[in-house]
């Protein structure tokens, strides 16, 4: 009997080993995580192009469609005698500079679909950060054209996203007065935890009603720099001071009431 057991075990190991071997001898492709770019306002065009190329061929997965030219236009070779994208992006839509055209292509891909292709591209803002998108644009411009993306484009977006010196449109993110919807629509959960979910840049909303009065909550929303919560000194200044302009009075009071009741 032991001989049968041995034969069965060896057969099993041989079959498993064969499949493992096959999987090892084919090309080894790993799906990368998009790298966090550390480019700032002083980033050179070369650095942007280099970062964009890594994103284009790696985590951005752009080449899966744009590399073949069957599912989406081949941006590097052009195909059909069109030439690479950098040489023609400024002429795709009359009056739209290359940089703007490419930005729109990545963030609103359905706005202009090249004839002969389907509208299959997703909004890349769901996959990549804005500075990663700008880096990809710089790389695409470099394909036969002039790179006009600069570090200033990244800095401008940084200022907008962090509530810095750039003017922010004082319009409500949502018309709703549902506090949970307001917290979600205004990105509060990105920095504050609620029911165990969310970031840890600001104090947790869980139990905040027991720690702060409604007046303190109101002040923290309208003037976040007035008093920084204990233990969060290193994040001081990160919360936008624009909610007084973004919220309607009813929305502000709904959020304050909701937070005050979280005990």
């Amino acid at each position: 009997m032991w001989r049968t057991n041995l034969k069965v075990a060896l057969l099993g190991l041989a079959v498993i080993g064969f499949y493992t071997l096959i999987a090892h001898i084919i090309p080894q492709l790993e799906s990368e995580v998009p790298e966090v770019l550390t480019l700032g306002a002083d980033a050179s065009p070369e650095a942007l192009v280099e970062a964009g190329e890594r994103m284009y061929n790696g985590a951005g997965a752009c080449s899966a469609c744009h590399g073949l030219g069957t599912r989406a236009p081949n941006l590097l070779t052009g195909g059909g005698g069109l030439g690479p994208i950098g040489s023609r992006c400024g002429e795709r839509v009359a009056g739209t500079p290359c940089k703007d055209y490419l930005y729109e292509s990545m963030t609103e891909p359905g706005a202009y679909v090249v004839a002969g292709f389907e509208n299959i591209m997703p909004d890349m803002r769901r996959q990549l950060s804005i500075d990663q998108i700008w880096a990809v644009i710089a790389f695409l411009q470099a394909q036969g054209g002039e790179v006009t993306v600069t570090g200033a484009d990244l800095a401008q977006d940084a200022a907008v996203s962090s509530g810095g010196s750039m003017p922010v449109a004082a319009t409500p993110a949502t018309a709703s007065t549902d506090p949970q919807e307001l917290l979600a629509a205004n990105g509060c959960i990105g920095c504050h935890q609620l029911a165990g979910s969310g970031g840890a840049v600001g104090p947790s909303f869980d139990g905040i009603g027991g720690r702060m009065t409604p007046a303190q909550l109101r002040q923290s929303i309208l003037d976040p720099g007035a008093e920084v919560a204990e233990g969060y000194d290193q994040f001081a200044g990160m919360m936008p001071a624009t909610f007084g302009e973004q919220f309607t009075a009813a929305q502000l009071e709904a959020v304050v009431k909701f937070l005050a009741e979280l005990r």
Partner: protein
Amino acid sequence: MIDALTLVQAAADTTGAYGSFPGIGARGAVWIAAQVHLMFAAFVLGVPMFAVITELIGIVAKDSKYDKLSKEFTRLLVFAYSATALWGGLLLFLLTTLYPRFWGHMARVFGPSMWLYAGLFFVESFTLYLYYYGWDRWKAGRAKWGHWALGLLLNVWGTIVMFIANGWLTYMMSPPSGVTAETLPEQVGLWNAIANATWMPINIHRLIANAVFGGSIVAAYAAYRFLSARTAEERAHYDWMGYVGNFIAISTFIVLPFAGYYLGREIYEFNQQMGITMMGGFMSWLWIVQAVLIGVLFLAANYYLWIGMARIPGAERFRPYTKWMLLLLVVCWIVWGTPHTMIASRAELAAMGGSHHPFLNILGVMSAKNTAVNLMILTTFLSFLMYRRANKRPTVAWAKSGSMIEGAMFALAAGVVVFYGIYGYFVEAIVRIGFSVYQVAAVLACIIGVTVIDLFVLRGAESRGEIRWGEMPERSQYALFVLAITFTWLMGLMGFARSGIRQHWHVWEVMRDTSAQAATPALGAAANMISLCVVIFLALVAFIFWLGGLAERAVQRPEPAGGA
């Protein structure tokens, strides 16, 4: 400023979100627990399907052989259930301790369904115990039908349990369109989250795959018992059991690719980028490995049938055809395993003169692959038909016409498959995709039509001699082992494909994986994990089989006279 904010945010997001596991890391630990749990779950969901069918055949045909077979299937389940629950518990603990933020999100979205899941698991377990331990008590008359109803109920509970869990995992792949990274979990409607884009395709695919998997494991069990049998009667019983298990595995396996097409189509419908990642992106080579495995399955299944025909009087007349069928299977296997497009560097593209290989390009396209796989299905069906007809001599007056119609249906189906395979090279991609539907429809129509005609042709047929069950060469049983191991490995591979297309997302475009192991590994590394899972699962299954034999021997051993 943005750099600092991004880094701080990433660090804050990750703080407390992940635990660590020694040696293999958190992902490795969850991978193994999830995969082995899933393999056992597939077994305990698949086996009851044909336990209840074979019991029904036994009742209707009044043949105790089927009843015995059904009970033997069920005995394996009793042990396998404990293993399923243990691995499920381990998976839950690992998710809670290693991925608390992710699991917290899932629990807040799916909480009530998790309670229902646990409750149904209890009910399912008790139904199984009643079903198995009540076998000899409720064995006649209306009580037997009541017993059979318990088996049916067992399948119902199991299917609901699987559908609930499928809701969780498909939500991770295809969350409802309105759900974004900013959406609070409490704002996601429970039913909306469960009934997502890929839920029903996965339900159908897994339901069929479980039957395939269960059948192959039962056949492997029978093969082992056949090899260790000491009497001719035992060998005959386990030979027959192996045949039934294999028949169920292969006959359900034949329809599995169609469920796969449906799932693939829904993935593309949900998100083109995800679909392209799966079929043409970094996972494109996975399908070559899949083709290798499925080719082995077709070859092993046909080989088992052809060897089995040696114990059937009258089968000699079909033997000359098998070498041509083998040739066709091998050619189709090679075509199916031919790569087409791949991610290539600029230098590689230049070397090939484009994105496709100048020669392999012709064989590597879907037109050729669809043609190959459909011809393999037709060939395997023909093997079954030959096996079935081997010892029968039709007596109906129209037998010759019936056989000719069957032959014509085969020829027509093969003609349609080849025609659209060639025509596909001359039309646009969007038109070509539609051709696969015609090919599949032709093959399915042939299978159904020929089966129905054959049932009538062989009604009242004379026997050329009884099948000599037990007179099977030992090498045939190793084919059954190869089938079971390959199905298990294939399940691990497809699990990696389904999970891997989410890439660095816990929940696609809703919750990022910000852990150190967020990158989706290449196939080599994934294969190592799959093989490890398969070895663990098969080792445990071997232990369960051994336990089953031990329990049986304890029952059969007579009590010593006079007692202790």
